[in-house]
């Protein structure tokens, strides 16, 4: 049976070429869209690494650079936040550290093999890990005992540990950063390793990260870079508390601007934006495929009309209606297989040529789902015309056109 169908398709290859090209292109479209979907999903399924429920972020804009004034304000804010019963914990951190921060600080660190590891830097005070809900794999976050540390303590994420050290346990390990001339510039001790910290959001790939300790009392540095407070409120805290918080901070800092947002709100917006980003190409692809599916059905329908004599003859020499039905669907599937095989040959070039730097599993999943999906569509499209074909009576074969 299969061989017979194969022969039929092959002998009609001229009239089937365009159909083949169409299914082939549909495969590529599906493959691309599905791969992007799996690509995003693979990030999405990688843990976020921080808490967003009941966590708020306050961004401050100091209105002077005066150190004493800043110190007083920060001290007052510290006491104020401590006094609120609605607040579970809070942490002063930099505006390139808190979740969904708009800023980034990147630095390169050369490891023992001489490879630069591009690393994102963060800084937060001793309560940051608790407030953000970071998960530790080994070691600990900063605490008072680090005041006396001779070598600067740092916390790294899992990916930094893997790319920089490639060792199973790194807590307590020391390393150096070298300056442009290869001279040691700074020494660090790794005191803890956290899991992920995808602070830009679910759909951003995790990258190597280093956390540095930030003492909120240290206002000698430009406070403008360390102007954020991450706040974990008690569950059920109303949004009215936001206005109170803003008012109180403005009051005790004598006019610093405060902007408070809920991480959950930011995240909703982020997920929505990302959803649109995925939805738009997916819906376009959907309509393209629907278009092709309708076209495929139309073409098959026509070809049934054209082949009434052939089908009638098959009936006359003993093929049952069911068999004709299976034959027409089978033909469409064989044709689809041709196209899909060619499509796969093209699709595998993407990982082979390493056009994009992504895990191979994504492509395999993309190819598999695209194939299954196409077979499904082809079968659906072939069904109605094949029902028509099954209804052709043997006597039609004798009817001259």
């Amino acid at each position, binding site marked *: 049976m299969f061989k017979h169908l194969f022969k039929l398709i092959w002998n009609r290859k001229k009239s089937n070429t365009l159909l083949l090209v169409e299914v082939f292109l549909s495969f590529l479209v599906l493959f691309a869209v599905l791969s992007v979907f799996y690509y995003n999903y693979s990030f999405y399924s990688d843990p976020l690494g921080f808490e967003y429920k009941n966590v708020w972020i306050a961004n401050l804009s100091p209105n002077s650079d005066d150190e004493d004034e800043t110190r007083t304000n920060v001290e007052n804010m510290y006491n104020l936040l401590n006094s609120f019963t609605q607040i579970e914990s809070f942490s002063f951190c930099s505006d390139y550290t808190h979740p969904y921060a708009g800023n980034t600080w990147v630095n390169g660190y050369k490891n023992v093999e001489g490879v630069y590891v591009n690393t994102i830097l963060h800084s937060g005070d001793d309560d940051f890990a608790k407030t953000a809900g970071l998960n530790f794999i080994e070691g600990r976050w900063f605490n008072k005992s680090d005041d006396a540390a001779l070598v600067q303590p740092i916390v790294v994420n899992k990916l930094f540990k893997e790319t920089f050290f490639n060792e199973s346990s790194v807590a307590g390990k020391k390393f150096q950063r070298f300056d*442009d001339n290869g001279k040691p510039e700074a020494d660090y001790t790794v005191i803890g390793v956290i899991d992920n910290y995808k602070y830009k959001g679910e759909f951003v790939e995790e990258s190597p990260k280093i956390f540095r300790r930030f003492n909120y009392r240290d206002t000698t540095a430009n406070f403008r870079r360390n102007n954020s407070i991450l706040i974990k409120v008690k569950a059920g805290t109303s949004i009215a508390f936001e206005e109170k918080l803003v008012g109180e901070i403005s009051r005790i800092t004598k006019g610093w601007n405060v*902007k408070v947002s809920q991480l959950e709100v930011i995240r909703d917006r982020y997920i929505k934006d990302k959803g649109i980003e995925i939805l738009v190409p997916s819906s376009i692809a959907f309509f393209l495929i629907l278009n092709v599916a309708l076209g495929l059905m139309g073409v098959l329908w*026509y070809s049934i009309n054209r082949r009434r004599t052939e089908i009638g003859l098959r009936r006359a020499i003993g093929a049952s209606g069911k068999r004709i039905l299976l034959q027409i669907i089978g033909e469409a599937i064989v044709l689809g297989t041709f196209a899909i095989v060619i499509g796969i040959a093209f699709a595998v070039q993407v990982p082979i040529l390493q056009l994009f730097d992504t895990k191979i599993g994504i492509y395999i999943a993309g190819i598999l789902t695209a194939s299954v999906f196409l077979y499904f569509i082809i079968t659906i499209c072939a069904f109605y015309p094949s029902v028509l074909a099954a209804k052709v009576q043997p006597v039609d074969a004798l009817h001259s056109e």
Partner: protein
Amino acid sequence: MLTNYIKMAGKVLLRRKFFTFISLFGISFTIMVLLIVTAFIESRVSSDGEMVNRSRILIADRLIGVDSSKTSGTWSSPGFKFLNKYLKNIETPELISIYSHGRDYFTYPNGIKLKLTRKFTDDTFWRIYPFRFIEGKAFGINEYESASRVAVINEYTALAYFGKTNVVGEPIEVGGITYRVIGVVENISVLNRYISSDVYVPTTTAKSNTLDTFFGGFGASILAKEVSDFPVIRNEFHRNLREALKDAPDPSRTHVLKCVLKTYSEMFAKEFYNSSDKLDHQTTLDKTIEEPTGIPASFLIYSGIGFLMILFMLLPSINLVNINLSRMTERNSEIGVRKAFGASKSTLVGQFIVENIILTLIGGVVSAILAALALNAINSSGIIKHVNLTMSFSMLIISVIICMIFGIMSGAYPAYRMSKLHPVEALRGGTNV
């Protein structure tokens, strides 16, 4: 002859409703998507209204400081101090405007939480970008230099904050400062990010620490007298950059300063080819040190868009060709008869192409309606703030051209096959074409 073609086409299309539907569905959908894309592009490249000077403007948007090993550095927008000291003094341009990035503030008018974007800017801003004022006027050099707390707000803000647009003279509080409204302008889509904001106030009203930054928070637009002045302006600015190096924070670490002045087209081209810009925090600093490619930006944009459009149209076209070919085999006998009764090859090709163009034109009308609805939905959904995408006359022309291309693309090959069909075979029927 043409009227006959049209009549014939109408009859053929009406008699085969399912296939007409399939064809129309594909055409309408394809052109609708192209129209929406065109509307977005138009909103970015149009030189209407406040963008009348678009082609003569250079933008300073990124300031990059890198250390000699290129492993570390600052990648940021320029700061006010840098721009004011090293860009503002360039002599060749007609006008230079320095403005801050919009920053969001929450205000609570009448107890409602309202998010407003505030932008610091100067008097020249209004001359480079002639906004349409609904009420009042812009602030001038006097208000700027005397640091008057005056504000130009957009229509959205006027309505959301005051509930009306005749609000000149009313006070408005944004970011802890109360300003007096002196003008109300039309809303500008956030897609036009250099000039879009809710509230515009003189930069001089900002706190001193905002104005004392080398990196971050600001940008500039430079209006050249002539487009041909661009190289001179860039050269002049490059000399200033070397000068600025000693002023950079942490001068021992900053070995090179980069700040490329780009045209709107170049900015758009960069976005177009690197749309994931906002996510590429992992891009190494090496990659971010960008130089103009030397290829004209508009060429890059239009060739890129053209390529994508053709790619997008490929599948629906092949689909249409396929359906047309199938219809043609069904119409073998018709072709034979027409040939027998005196239709020449070219007449038949003409007939078939006209049939297709009519189909695509109907599809064009349907798609124009669909696109108008979709644009309306996008405008009112608030997905993109203040966006106002419209169907312009030029878009209508473009869609007609797209229709023609589509009609000819999908009709030409079947018509060619049809004209080659031998009348004797066509009349015999049942032959495989």
